[in-house]
């Protein structure tokens, strides 16, 4: 089927000629995925392209990234390849199958595929073809390993003693980052847990609950680890039953002992990790700080009252001291003023007396005694103010003025009745 060429006389891109014939309305059957798609389109009002886009987004399947069976074709050491099949239990069964990358995580499908890869590589037919007979030793080991790893019970027994999958705990004497050193250890131990999921060690940001639940989990660790794999082979023959029982008993005891030892080992390590955990220390410190803070807060009321009382006391003491000081000061200043007034009075008195003497008793030398007596009477009669006034007037005054002043004041005092009579004035 192909398309014809454009006939001559046709121009443009598109020409609509006629309408579709009348459609028929019929009910469609509401069954099947295409109907559901139709219903969805109609309900949501999607166009075809929109709908296809939505559907296309839904139907994305993730491509399997694994590179086939090639990954199981691991290099096996010469030592491993030379394993005596009688001692198959002593070798790393995962290495035998080429599953060292996965170990206890390998799925049944991976085990089967890995086994096939190993069989293809080590089949006796292939070995004998390249020369030499009886080259089936390693093949026997492969078969044993496959049997063991494929059987879930036997696989657990092997996994229990698969030390190659273990991550050692950090060396006590070395310095290390807590999370980097202990994280992988706990992760590797967690594969033995009957309870899943196992809480992870977390990091420095883990909450207290997380850390606590982590250690709680590990303190009560429920392990499925068994040690049947290390059993001494029980003799098959029925001839010596006593010996058989003896071996069985020995095995049982050995298992128990190993289990106890393992439990103890883990318990000790968990204890050690707990003791080393920087978060626990931090939480303790935080707790302390918190406690202190709480206490501080709890006592806030009492402390405030005490402070207030103290402040009040201080204020009172201060006020008292100030008052005392003020009182003393005022006392002292009163004394001084008194003294000053006294001095001034003395000075004024001296001025008054000297005014008489300096003016040679106003020329009346003969009446010296009378004048002195009068002056003394006047000075005694003067109050402080009058004394000051008189002294000021007499200072530097000549004899006439001085006489005048003294006479005036004497007459004033006489009239006021303060003195009775004077001899001179």
């Amino acid at each position: 089927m192909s398309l014809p060429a454009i006939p001559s006389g046709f121009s443009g891109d598109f020409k609509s000629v006629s309408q579709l014939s009348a459609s028929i309305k019929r009910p469609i059957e509401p069954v099947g995925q295409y109907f559901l798609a139709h219903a969805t389109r109609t309900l949501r009002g999607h166009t075809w392209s929109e709908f296809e886009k939505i559907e296309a987004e839904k139907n994305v399947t993730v491509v399997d990234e694994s590179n086939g069976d090639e990954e199981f074709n691991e290099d096996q050491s010469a030592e491993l390849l030379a394993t005596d099949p009688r001692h198959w239990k002593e070798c790393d069964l995962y290495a035998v199958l080429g599953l060292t990358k996965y170990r206890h995580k390998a799925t049944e499908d991976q085990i089967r595929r890995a086994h096939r890869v190993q069989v293809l590589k080590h089949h006796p037919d292939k070995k004998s073809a390249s020369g030499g007979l009886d080259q089936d030793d390693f093949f026997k080991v492969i078969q044993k390993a496959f049997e063991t790893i494929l059987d879930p019970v036997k696989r657990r027994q092997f996994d229990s003693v698969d030390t190659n999958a273990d991550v050692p705990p950090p060396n006590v004497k070395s310095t290390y980052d807590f999370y980097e050193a202990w994280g992988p250890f706990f992760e590797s131990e967690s594969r033995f847990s009957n309870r899943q999921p196992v809480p992870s060690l977390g990091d420095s940001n883990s909450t207290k609950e997380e850390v606590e639940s982590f250690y709680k989990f590990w303190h009560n660790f429920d392990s499925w680890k068994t040690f049947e794999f290390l059993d001494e082979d029980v003799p098959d023959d029925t001839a010596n039953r006593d010996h058989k029982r003896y071996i069985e008993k020995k095995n049982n005891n050995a298992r128990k002992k190993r289990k106890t030892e393992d439990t103890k080992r883990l318990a000790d390590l968990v204890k050690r990790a707990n003791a080393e955990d920087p978060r626990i220390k931090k939480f303790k410190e935080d707790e302390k700080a918190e406690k202190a803070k709480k206490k501080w807060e709890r006592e806030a009321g009492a402390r405030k009252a005490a402070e207030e009382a103290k402040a009040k006391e201080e204020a009172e003491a201060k006020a008292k001291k100030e008052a005392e000081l003020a009182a003393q000061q005022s006392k002292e200043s009163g004394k001084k003023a008194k003294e000053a007034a006294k001095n001034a009075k003395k000075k004024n008195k001296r001025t008054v007396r000297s005014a008489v003497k300096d003016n040679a008793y106003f020329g009346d030398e003969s009446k010296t005694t009378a004048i002195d007596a009068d002056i003394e009477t006047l000075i005694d009669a003067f109050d402080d103010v009058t004394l000051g006034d008189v002294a000021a007037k007499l200072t530097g005054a000549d004899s006439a003025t001085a006489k005048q002043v003294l006479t005036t004041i004497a007459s004033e005092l006489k009239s006021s009745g303060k003195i009775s009579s004077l001899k001179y004035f």
Partner: protein
Amino acid sequence: MATIGIAFGNSTSSIAATTKEGKLEVIANPDGDRFIASALSYVGEDEYHGAQAIAQLVRNPDTTIVNFRDFIGLEFDSIDFETSSSYSKVSCKPVKGSDGKVAYSINGELISVDEVVKRHLKQIKLAAEDYIGLDIEGCVISIPTNFTIEQQKSLISIAKSAGLEVKQLIKEPSGALLSHLVSKDSLSEDKIFVVADIGGIRSDAAVISVRGGILTILATVHDYKLGGDKLDDCLVEFFAKEFEKKYKCNPRKNERSLAKLKAACIVTKKTLSNVQTSTISIDSLADGYDFHSTINRLRFELVGREVFSQLTSFVESVVLKAGLETIDIDEVLLVGGSSNIPKLASNIQFIFPESTIISAPSLDSKLPNPNELICRGSSLQASMIESFDNEEIEESLQPIIVNTQHIAKPIGIKGSNGEFIQIISRETAYPIRKSIKLKTESNDVFIELYEGERTIKETVIESEKLSDDEEEEDDYSDEEPDVVKELVYIPGQLLGQLAIRGVGSGNEVEVIVNINKDGKLQITARSGEVVVKGEI
């Protein structure tokens, strides 16, 4: 919690469920039956269900209820028991109940048909729960195409009272076709099907067009008198005559003898579908005489000749009712227990042209049991809608979504030789988008969009003489030359023309035709970077 599919028939019911592994499984009841007889029997204090109830038809026909499905939700007076329904004559007779509907009188007690259906569905639910081991909460039940709205409503409420939430009711032919197409992974192929459901006491046929995975029923016919039961009656008559001749006593006059004979004939009929010869053996059939006889398939086909021809014409009638010819039918799907009969398939094969595929177990042994198709379809639908809320399902079943416009004529483009290259088939529901990739013959190409006209191309095949073997075979048809009719569409009404330039000769052009919900047609031609669009 699980959602199951139930095919609820007059004769048998079956259950299918999707297992945890995602596999669809038809569930067997505790008796081990995958086709659980829709029958209930009351003997003394005990209730029997399924095959155990059918076994009671011989001893206790008056307290054994069969073939009750069609009576759901119908008024007793509206049923014409002579023409529009057939039920086993040797069983409890339907009577008018207190609510005017059908009821059955069991030991003087009236049991309404609703109650009978409820008890039957409860047994079905129990069987499914026993098998799956989970609580059954939802189900999809299949119903005949002519079930009325009232009948549907009463079925839903009855199922609810039996503890089953009906997520959806689907029609039997569409369920069967869905399961058939999904199992063949050909749901997206555009084809016209005839789904012929030949059941126990009635037959239904439907013409269904499948367009882009969407099923549309074009026509349906029903016959309440035609079915496997009729063939059983033919066998009964045949053996009764033989018995009468041998022992001079009539087994038909005694109800118990008749029931025994019928039960044996059903087994014989089923056996004959698989092997050429079958025996029938009944202890003390009548008057203490044991009966033992054999019958071969050819004899059976002769005995049931009339019924077979009725069935064939019945299937033909639905094609005519759809306004089509047998040449328009791409495939005939036989459903129901009686479809196992090889003669039926070969008869139907005969009336359809060679290009029509007949899907029947006798012609293709790889097909699943035709009796399972409906329940498988129901279960498929159940698993598909399981995750939806009831409101979402209800919303999807609204008339606005279900009633869809269908294009009357095919749409296609004219090829370089003037031929019609179909893009969208007729009877396709729209909105639809389809695309086609075509080669170009020149740098600039011309796309003419046409509606197709249906024509019948007749080719006369000359008998070729190639080898001796073929020569002998050809002797039969030498009288008249073989005329092979072929359905061919030619370009009719031109819709639009589109030119796309500079695509380069020998390149591919993708033509996309999109009809939106308003009936607008958009055409896009694309080749690499060159895109031309047009709208009609």
